[in-house]
């Protein structure tokens, strides 16, 4: 029984990681109808930015909560700038071309960051400093670490925060207007270039926060770390209904639970295959995802 509960906790912890990244995927898609394949790699850059800042502050020797917050904010700032640059240099020039052009550009940016990362950081995995002392809470045979708990909390906070920004603020209204019709939004006096840049900055900052949080719990970071995790988060976003913020959370948690469940059987090494099989099944049976609404897509 405690094994089953423990596996649920393991699945939730893993799912929260996917959810955190899927949220950024889904938000950018919601506004731009662009699958930003480079999102997983911005997550990687966030982890590396956190790594360098944390080492500069020597946090491995002197763990502190304040230091962790500084590192997270620093990494978010770095990635927000990178996100805006990516949008300005890679996506904006092709914005008015067909959607496929943007997608291929996104894959190009993704590969550039992955292999550029290997040139700059080296292919050798690095280990993230332990900025918060790891603690394990135990409840009737079920263990959870403070770091995993933090990821779950951050993912939930980010989800509600994004919902709030998109649906309850002025800039959120502008984002929705831009999403609805870029040309008309412009005519209504919305600075759409700014809104799109803001969307990327926000999405990339979230990815960076995710990178730092995950690196705390699973300390191994390398330039290709965003590839598989990013793809799984993409599957999570599609599963939940891409463009739908609570859907990304639901999708992430479902993928996490499913992977954990597969890992616990003797088919543990088929884990990744199952995640992608799910993607294919969803695309065949319910392309709009669990919480997405197919009808509005086809206006």
């Amino acid at each position: 029984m405690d094994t089953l509960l423990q596996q649920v906790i393991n699945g939730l912890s893993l799912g929260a990681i996917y959810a955190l990244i899927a949220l950024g995927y889904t938000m950018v898609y919601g506004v731009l109808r662009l699958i930003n394949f480079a999102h997983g790699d911005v997550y990687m850059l966030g982890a590396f930015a956190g790594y360098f800042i944390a080492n500069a502050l020597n946090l491995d020797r002197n763990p502190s909560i304040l230091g962790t917050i500084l590192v997270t904010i620093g990494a978010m700032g770095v990635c927000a700038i990178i996100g805006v640059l990516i949008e300005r240099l890679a996506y904006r020039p092709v914005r008015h071309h067909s959607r496929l052009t943007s997608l291929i550009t996104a894959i190009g940016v993704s590969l550039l960051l992955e292999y550029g990362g290997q040139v700059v950081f080296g292919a050798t995995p690095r280990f993230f400093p332990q900025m918060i002392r790891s603690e394990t809470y135990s409840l009737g045979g079920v263990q959870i670490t403070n770091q995993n708990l933090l990821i779950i909390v951050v993912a939930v906070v980010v989800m509600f925060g994004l919902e709030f920004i998109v649906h309850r603020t002025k800039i959120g209204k502008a984002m929705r207007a831009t999403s609805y019709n870029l040309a008309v939004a412009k005519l209504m006096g919305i600075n759409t270039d700014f809104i799109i840049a803001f969307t990327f900055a926000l999405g990339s900052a979230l990815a960076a926060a995710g990178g730092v949080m995950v690196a705390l719990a699973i300390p191994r970071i390398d330039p290709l770390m965003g590839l598989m995790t990013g793809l799984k988060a993409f599957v999570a976003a599609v599963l939940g209904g891409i463009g739908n913020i609570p859907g990304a959370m639901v999708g992430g948690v479902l993928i996490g639970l499913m992977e954990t469940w597969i890992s616990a059987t003797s088919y543990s090494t088929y884990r990744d295959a199952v995640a992608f099989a799910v993607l294919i099944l969803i695309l065949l049976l319910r392309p709009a995802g669990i919480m997405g609404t197919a009808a509005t897509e086809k206006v």
Partner: protein
Amino acid sequence: MESSTHTERPARSTVATLAALLVIAATGLATGACERRPGAAEDAGGEILIGMYGSLTGDGASFGQSSKEGTELAVEHINAAGGLLGGRMYRLLVEDDQSRPEEASNAVTKLITQDKVIAVLGEVASRRSLAAAPIAQRYQVPMITPSSTNERVTEVGDYIFRVCFIDPFQGEVLAKFAFNDLKARKVAILKDIQQDYSVGLTDSISKHFAALGGQVLPPVSYTSGDADFKAILTQVRSQKPDAVFVTGYYPEAAIITRQARELGLNVPLLGGDGWVGDALKNGREALNNTYISNHYSGDNPDPIVQDFVRTYREKFGRDPDSIAALAYDAVKVLTDAITRANGTEGPKIRDALARTDLPGITGRLKMNAKRNVDKPAVIQEVTYANGEVKFIYRTTINPG
């Protein structure tokens, strides 16, 4: 944000395109940036060219770095002592295989066909040695692997030699230690199915532990590069083993030990020589109560060991690990064979290598009929304190 959009394409085709692109993005993993420097085509004069290939970057970077340092130190010592074959000097060419088997075979092909080396040294990981060995065999260039322990490596052909013990023996040593010293009766094994080394070692441990009368739970699989082991560790925990073997390499071993302790799995963890790598230290306090089998112990008071440890520390500013020690021994074995063969032709060196018998840092190096050496193994206890991993000598187990 499920608001509508005024594009002309229906959502379904876009999503189908995405699926296709996803596949393209995923295959991006397989194609790597590969770096080539121009081949050293010039006449090397009286120099003797030898090649080393290893994982200087990537997952196994610690293996490659230690091998390179051990090899360089040996070459330096031999050249400083007047070289070989009447004053000819070694020139060492090093190729990085980025921890990838396909790059390992490329590296060896280049060393042999372009650089024209007379012998090849490498690799550490058995999977990469197995990828490169057929090439050395085809060109009849002797290859000595310093530390690949999978028994199939030297079975590739009669030009492939090694200077370390093999996994059937290492598995026996680990099984005996767990059964006799740790008094374990029920054990679990975690194996990396991507690594021939881990698979071979797992088989050997299972066989020997069962032969001693212990119970071996069905091995649980993971793959190199995995970072979340909690699901499989929770499953292992539910079976209540007395000890757990982790037969893969150090990057994963570090994370596995940590996550095992986080789940309250506090039984002894055991690993093979694949745990010897700098990133193991990231297991931190979780490394306490873990044990490994290893090739040599730097505490050995034998002058041949202490001289090596001292000169290595002077040159590289750190203590040599067993990978460096074996790399050093591999060069010594090659030098001895070239000297006895009195020439640099492949078949001649091969014949001399087959008759190797000399003292090494890691024990007596006597080549047997299968081109392996029969050497004792040491068991070390791993401890972690103040950011440092220490391997503390526990016992020596002799073959046979």
